[in-house]
């Protein structure tokens, strides 16, 4: 009894009336949430925080991924990223995807707006515009390889309008990134569209009725009712689009493997780590990208302060 009471003492609100048995109950009660969290936290630490920590550590070494020893090299890897043009220049490829992402958001906003009005075959159009988002990335990659290949679908289509000497859509470095970025728009626009449509439909109809009474035009309704109502989701989508554009991987990797000047920063990182066995340098590249993405997310929270916090 005395021993139990002794062990109960460090509790934050020690009650003088606590008996031995109640003390034990309290203790197990306090451990309960941790028992539930044991496995989830284990996974979170093992697959997110340990890799991130290790990545930072590796980034200051010249490790090849196999060697027993990891030689520290200070900031050499980071210096290399920012001074060797062939590494940093791939960041410029992101600009294609960034512009494409803005086009994607604009198209999504347009289709979400017109489909929130009365439209024939509304559900059919909604389904068709959205469906590509669900498709397997490899399937999309192969489909568009077939679409863009010489004598492929696109060549046949432009031949219909009289262009008989089309360029090599994926072989010509000055065009390939446009083709890939457009493929990316084809793939991801549906998600933005559905999110925007959902947000527009959750705007209370009283607002429209009031606007009707005031004789508002369609544009005015869009500008003063719809746009403010979906500001939050548009802002969030824009942030996701920017970090998405910086970490583009699947479509160029599957379709061109990064050839013809279509390599992206993530493809370079992956190749550096797993093809050229420069894990140290690759880790530094990954850390740079991670910092940029974290900065963008932080900026988003500064620009759009409300939302998200309701979970805590």
């Amino acid at each position, binding site marked *: 009894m005395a021993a139990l009471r002794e062990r109960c003492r460090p509790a934050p609100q020690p009650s003088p009336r606590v008996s031995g048995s109640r003390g034990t109950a309290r203790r197990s009660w306090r451990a*309960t949430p941790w028992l539930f969290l044991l496995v989830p936290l284990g996974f979170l630490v093992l697959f997110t925080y340990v890799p991130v920590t290790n990545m930072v550590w*590796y980034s200051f070494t010249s490790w090849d991924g196999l060697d027993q020893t990891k030689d520290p090299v200070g900031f050499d890897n980071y210096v290399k990223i920012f001074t060797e043009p062939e590494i940093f220049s791939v960041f410029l490829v992101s600009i294609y995807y960034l512009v494409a992402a803005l086009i994607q958001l604009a198209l999504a906003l347009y289709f979400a707006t017109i489909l929130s009005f*009365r439209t024939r075959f509304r*559900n059919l159009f909604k389904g068709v515009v959205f469906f590509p988002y669900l498709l397997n990335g490899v399937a999309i990659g*192969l489909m568009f390889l077939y679409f863009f290949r010489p004598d492929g679908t696109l060549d046949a289509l432009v031949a219909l309008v009289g262009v008989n000497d089309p360029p090599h859509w994926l072989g010509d470095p000055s065009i390939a990134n446009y083709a890939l970025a457009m493929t990316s728009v084809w793939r991801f626009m549906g998600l933005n569209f*559905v*999110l925007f449509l959902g947000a527009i439909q959750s705007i209370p109809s009283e607002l429209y009725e009031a606007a009707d009474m005031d004789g508002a*035009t369609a544009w005015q309704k869009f500008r003063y009712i719809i746009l403010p109502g979906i500001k939050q989701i548009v802002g969030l989508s824009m942030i996701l689009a920017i970090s998405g554009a910086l970490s583009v991987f699947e479509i160029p990797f*599957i379709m061109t493997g990064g050839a013809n000047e279509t390599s992206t920063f993530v493809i370079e990182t992956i190749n550096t780590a797993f093809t050229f066995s420069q894990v140290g340098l690759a880790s530094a590249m990954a850390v740079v990208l991670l910092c940029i993405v974290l900065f963008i997310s932080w900026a988003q929270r500064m620009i759009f302060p409300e939302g998200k916090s309701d979970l805590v």
Partner: protein
Amino acid sequence: MSSMAPPSGRRIRHGKASFRRSLASAAGPIATALKYASLFVATAVVLIPLMTLLMAAFKTREEYSTTGPLEPPSSWFNFDNFVTAFTRGNMIEGFINTSIILVVSLVGTIIIGTMTAYAVDRFEFRGRRLILGLFLVATLVPAVTTQVATFQIITGLGLFNTRWSAILLFMGTDIIAIYIFLQFMKAIPKSLDEAAMIDGANRLTIYARVIFPLLRPAIATVVIVKGIAVYNEFYIPFLYMPAQDLGVISTSLFRFQGPFGSQWEVVAAGTILVIIPTLVAFLFLQRHIYSGLTSGAVK
């Protein structure tokens, strides 16, 4: 103009209808024509790549080399390419491996996600905010970048070239699911827990018998959102399961580029085989997919 648009909710039906009517009258016939024109263009842009691929999949080898991509196949019943893709292209293994990984990682995600949400929402304990913060920050880390270091952990655990590598990574990094459960659990009244506790149930019983069954709609959402993501995932199986017999549908299809590189009719058939399950799932689960993505994507 008689609309077929279903009202999304009975309460707002009237307001919405009158709003739409007034828009149509304000916009005029030209705007309406432009609107439908743009919708038809969008439909064409979505469907043409899919349709030409479908047509190629039904062509014989000779037919493929002699006809253009816009010409339909002579027979819509020539399934030879599908058979070739399915048997010689390792698609069977791909579907089996994907199914195994899908089922195990879904079960794991649901158990882990609901347990986390239960612990965080129903208990007051020191470090609760810290835990939530840890999960929240983790959503910001793009998984593709950390693979450089995750790879060492997977090989260190001896999981390289096993299905467990993909299963554990799918289970262990799904923070979105935890948030879906957390949001849903907030809506379940705490008085239910208390009533069960008065009846003498312990916390595990409350979790398993009271909370878990009530979370069924959230579980359905997670199954759909996660199921699509796992089915489509390419990079993790590509990196961690390079063995020929461990191909999932993504990696099996990706490997088509080698042996069938010049046989586009077979590649097309393989691609269509991968798309069909997605199409079927979409047709049957449309409504759930839309709402699931809306709650899942906006973490």
